[in-house]
């Protein structure tokens, strides 16, 4: 048996565990696809071929010896280059960080994926220091959209979106501070999970905004998303924000019916500043789920504003010394945003943090009457690379500032979200399935039901 590009992670793992496909063959197939297509997609910044082959051979040896090889046996995966990968400097999309000493230990989530049998094949392109929604990078060039390579992959986990959307690997890991998993998922037409804040360990990944940083998986199916997510759960003393809750596996719950769930459509703010394709995508998902109730989310615009303020100031604090010493080695657009962030008066940041608690209480009320909220993931399908403005309802708006307007008010209070791809023509677009804190299982269950109904799916790449 050979590994075909359309094989998802669950199929690869089953074939590898069953002896029909070797882990090495699955790995070689991924490496060959990367070699063939990454020149166009520019998703990878590092390919760890030697390491991947060694890991795959070890899995094959374990299988030959009759050992348990885990639920992701032989599944190739890649990580946004802000994850520590032993032997590589953790560049986090920057020029400055690539001068760091090579990491001496993998990020916790890589260790957990590999403990489940997955095979790391490389590190992925991203917007500089994750302060980005486009997937463009002045140092490494843009990662490209697999459905139209003249368009954005979305950021900041652009390479993750491009690699999975382009079927170079079935699973990638990324980070989401204000939308950086959900935006590339939307533009590249794949599934993405931003778990509850604190659910997955961020240990040995390069931070951006400590209050909002989350890590999570991308995949081409909900089953694969749940497989990866379940493999990565668990407490970790190396991340101060990581929960001490025990494992709460979602895979066994995926096929449970959704008919008992109360599903609402996020109204008001979430229905404004959207292109017709986003309206169409939310409408299709709502119709399939029988959702008719519109739920007002109070003060979402203010939540987005507060998320912006906290992001720019915490980001500035993180990078203050680099801004002093190496300002000319930043992407100028990132540098100028961060310098401005350093100048925001402290009381305004404190008020933004206090507002989070108020806003969180509003959502606690909302989740008394619904189990799930649906909302656009992005206001539009993937814009052209380099596009600066778009026209919405006759008004010219800046692209960068508006891509994340629907994701920011959700990650602001750490709610779990599955971004599901609606395969519209000519380009896919994502919808957010939002659940209450710690209820990733519900968001995944709804995503799985939509996938089974054929409403959401990851379209085959056709841009290259």
């Amino acid at each position, binding site marked *: 048996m050979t590994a075909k590009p359309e094989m998802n992670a669950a199929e690869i793992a089953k074939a590898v565990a069953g002896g029909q496909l070797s882990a090495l063959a699955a790995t070689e197939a991924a490496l060959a696809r990367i070699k063939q297509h990454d020149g166009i997609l520019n998703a990878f910044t590092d390919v760890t071929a030697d390491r991947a082959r060694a890991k795959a051979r070890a899995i094959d040896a374990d299988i030959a010896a009759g050992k348990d090889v885990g639920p992701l046996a032989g599944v190739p995966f890649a990580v946004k280059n802000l994850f520590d990968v032993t032997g590589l400097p953790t560049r986090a999309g920057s020029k400055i960080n690539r001068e760091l000493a090579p990491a001496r230990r993998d990020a916790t989530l890589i260790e957990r994926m590999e403990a489940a049998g997955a095979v790391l094949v490389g590190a992925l392109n991203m917007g500089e220091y994750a302060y980005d929604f486009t997937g463009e990078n002045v140092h490494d060039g843009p990662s490209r959209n697999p459905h139209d390579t003249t368009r954005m992959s979305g950021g900041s986990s652009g390479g993750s979106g491009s690699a999975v959307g382009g079927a170079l690997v079935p699973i990638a890991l990324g980070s989401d501070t204000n939308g950086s998993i959900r935006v590339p998922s939307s533009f590249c037409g794949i599934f993405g999970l931003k778990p*509850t804040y604190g659910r997955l360990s961020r240990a040995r990944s390069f931070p951006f905004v400590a*209050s909002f940083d989350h890590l999570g998986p991308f995949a081409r199916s909900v089953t694969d998303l749940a497989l990866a997510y379940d493999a990565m759960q668990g407490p970790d003393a190396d991340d101060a924000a990581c929960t001490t809750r025990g494992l709460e596996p979602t895979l066994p719950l995926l096929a449970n019916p959704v008919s008992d769930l109360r599903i609402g459509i996020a109204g008001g703010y979430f229905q404004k500043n959207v292109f017709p394709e986003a309206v169409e995508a939310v409408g299709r998902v709502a119709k399939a789920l029988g959702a008719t109730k519109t739920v007002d989310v109070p003060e979402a615009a203010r939540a987005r*504003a*507060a998320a912006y*303020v906290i992001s720019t100031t915490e980001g500035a604090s993180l990078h203050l010394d680099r801004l002093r010493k190496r300002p000319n080695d930043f992407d*100028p657009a990132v540098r*100028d945003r961060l310098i*401005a962030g350093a100048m925001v008066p402290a009381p305004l940041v404190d*008020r933004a943090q206090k507002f989070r608690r108020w806003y969180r209480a509003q959502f606690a009320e909302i989740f008394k009457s619904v189990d799930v909220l649906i909302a656009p993931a992005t206001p539009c399908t993937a814009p052209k690379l380099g596009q600066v403005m778009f026209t919405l309802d006759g008004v010219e708006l800046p692209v960068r500032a508006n891509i994340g307007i629907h994701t920011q008010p959700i990650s602001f209070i750490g709610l779990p979200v599955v971004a599901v791809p609606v395969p519209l023509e000519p380009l896919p677009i994502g919808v957010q399935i939002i659940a209450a804190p*710690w209820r990733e299982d519900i968001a995944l269950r709804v995503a799985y039901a939509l996938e089974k109904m054929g409403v959401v799916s990851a379209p085959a790449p056709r841009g290259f």
Partner: protein
Amino acid sequence: MAAEPLDDYIDAVSKALALPVEEAWRPAVRANLEVSLRLARLVDEFALPDDTEPAPVFTA
């Protein structure tokens, strides 16, 4: 006198933080600061009870 209302402030904070702002960057820094302050004002004008605790590390 500075050309823009925020320029004096930018100069002062730049000095206080020992954070260089070259003249070529100033328009972009100023534009970004205007956006940040406009959004911060949105939060600022929202009245919260005095006993509201901040959520510096947020647990959902």
